[in-house]
């Protein structure tokens, strides 16, 4: 039974490797990738149900008993994120068939795509800090391949910066693991949590914790380390931007969530720091979104304030706020993917990414326009959509704990986010139709509809999903669950 845990990592890895040999046969590659993802969705959903009913599932690879070997831990949070990741990947895959040029598709797109899923799944499932670094590298390697796919001037220029910034943060990660190993003598997360709890979090451990936070904040695009994100996420083809925006930064957030609810929970200075940084991240990110007329860049900038909201939940650190963070994480993955794909469709429809040169899509593309409207409302957090539930939990917990200023900052940021997406709505969808408006293939709207439907279900069916999220938050707030299930007392 516990061998099932490795399937979501192993399957895309193997299939991705096999597809290297069939790169010219696009139809075959499409079919195989679709089947792979369907198997992945069903197996991870089964895993989610199993873990919800029977508790955390552990796989000790190669029969090395924890804490000596690398272990995979499928707990509530990991499985929930796994299912979401695979659903989003499936929608992006459907979008790829009609939107990506065949030259890029032939150039190993599907291999990179599956390797990206491998890395993301592995990062969610691993229970070992150094192994987390390895899976980070796997997903980064895949993303290096995807971001430069096509090799245009701008792509090469931005990829170089993207690779460099990620390389430097990876080196920092290795250095941090070395420090942590010298202080605690282990890299297994559960054992780390146990030992840090035993000796108390002294100054040196807090320093290491903040260094680790800097690494994850670079990957997750927090203030002041988000400067690389908007440009490099808006340069590649839309479907790749959607994958990056939905998955990559969220892995950084997941790592912060895992490490700072499990290992470094004994010193409140880190969590106070998170609240400050969350405020700055929200405000500056949304100001960036208001500053540009390139619609892809507007959506890329909108990733940043969302990360701020999630950090707010980790900083407040009560059961309610962690539940809010987890819920917001799920919602944001879905809605960001949907928005990127929508913006891609809008760019195809109007033939430009410049807001000032578009207009009148409501007359020519009604379905696209209404989908965009719903996705925009979801992003901002208008009830009854999914953004509302996450934001409600986060702001409620912030008010309860007395963080009034940050809660008000969050509310103001939501308004500014609304302004930034409504600018797209007014510029591209209202107004007189421009002559350059082209037809969008209907098959592009199918994956977008799927994602929008998923996010509506997250919102309207909130009461069915919330017990899972609540259980995950309860598990996270009390690290002894995790430690006991890994080390078995």
């Amino acid at each position, binding site marked *: 039974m516990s061998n099932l845990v490795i399937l979501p990592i192993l399957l895309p890895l193997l299939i991705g490797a096999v597809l290297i040999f069939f790169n010219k046969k696009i139809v075959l590659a499409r079919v195989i990738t679709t089947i792979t993802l369907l198997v992945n969705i069903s197996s991870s959903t089964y895993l989610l149900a199993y873990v919800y009913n029977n508790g955390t599932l552990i796989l000790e690879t190669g029969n090395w008993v924890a804490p000596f070997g690398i272990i995979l831990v499928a707990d509530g949070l990991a499985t929930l994120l796994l299912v979401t990741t695979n659903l989003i990947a499936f929608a992006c895959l459907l979008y790829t068939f009609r939107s990506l040029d065949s030259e890029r598709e032939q150039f190993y797109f599907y291999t990179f795509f599956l390797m990206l899923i491998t890395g993301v799944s592995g990062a969610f499932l691993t229970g070992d800090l*150094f192994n987390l670094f*390895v899976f980070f*590298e796997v997903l980064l*390697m895949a993303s*290096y391949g995807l971001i*430069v796919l096509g*090799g*245009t*001037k*701008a792509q*090469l*220029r*931005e*990829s*170089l*910066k993207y*690779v*460099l910034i990620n*390389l*430097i943060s*990876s*080196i920092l990660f*290795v*250095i941090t*693991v*070395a*420090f942590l*190993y*010298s202080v605690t003598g282990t*890299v297994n997360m559960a054992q780390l949590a146990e030992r840090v709890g035993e000796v108390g979090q002294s100054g040196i451990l807090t320093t290491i914790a903040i260094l680790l936070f800097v690494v994850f904040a670079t990957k997750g695009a927090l203030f002041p380390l988000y400067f690389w994100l908007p*440009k490099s996420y808006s*340069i590649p083809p839309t479907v790749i931007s959607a994958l990056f925006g939905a998955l990559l930064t969220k892995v950084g957030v997941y790592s912060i969530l895992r490490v700072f609810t499990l290992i470094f929970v004994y010193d409140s200075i880190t969590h106070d720091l998170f609240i400050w940084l969350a405020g700055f991240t929200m405000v500056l990110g949304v100001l960036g979104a208001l500053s*540009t*007329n*390139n619609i892809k*860049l507007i959506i890329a900038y909108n990733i940043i304030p969302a990360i701020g909201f999630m950090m707010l939940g980790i900083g407040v650190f009560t059961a309610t706020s962690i539940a809010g963070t987890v819920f917001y994480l799920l919602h944001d993955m879905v809605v960001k993917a949907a928005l990127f794909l929508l913006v891609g469709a809008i760019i195809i429809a109007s033939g430009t*990414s*410049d807001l000032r040169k578009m207009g009148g899509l409501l007359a020519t593309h009604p379905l696209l326009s209404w989908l965009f409207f719903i996705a925009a409302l979801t992003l901002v957090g208008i009830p009854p959509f999914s953004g509302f539930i996450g934001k409600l939990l986060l702001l409620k917990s912030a008010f309860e704990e007395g963080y009034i200023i940050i809660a008000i900052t969050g509310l103001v940021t939501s308004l500014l986010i609304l302004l930034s997406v409504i600018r797209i709505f007014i510029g591209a969808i209202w107004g007189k139709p421009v002559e350059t408006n082209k037809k969008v293939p209907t098959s592009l709207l199918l994956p977008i509809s799927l994602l929008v439907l998923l996010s509506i279900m997250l919102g309207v069916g909130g009461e069915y999903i919330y017990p899972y999220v609540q259980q995950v938050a309860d598990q996270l707030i009390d690290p002894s669950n995790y430690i006991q299930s890994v080390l078995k007392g």
Partner: protein
Amino acid sequence: MEIFMSIVSGCLVAAGVYLLLQRQILKIIIGTAILSHAAHLLILTMGKLDRGAPPIIKDGITKYADPLPQALILTSIVISFGVTSYLLVLAYRTYNENRTDNMEQLRGTDNE
């Protein structure tokens, strides 16, 4: 010995950071390579530089060298080797397409 190795590692970090702050792409890449060397040296140092038998269980031997840092370094070396080679190719292509290897000129504009 650990103190000496830590200082060496620190010097490598300093050299790497100095190179990262240059304008030519190639110097920056060499800087990242030196930085990763510093990180590897640090892992080795942090695992305590004590002498002992290789970590294979035999009768009559009680003192073993710590195998974990070695495993970590091997993994990390392979990754940094891969990324560095990728970066070199990327830099070459970037230079060919953009006709410059100066980071100052690789800024880009808003609407592309």
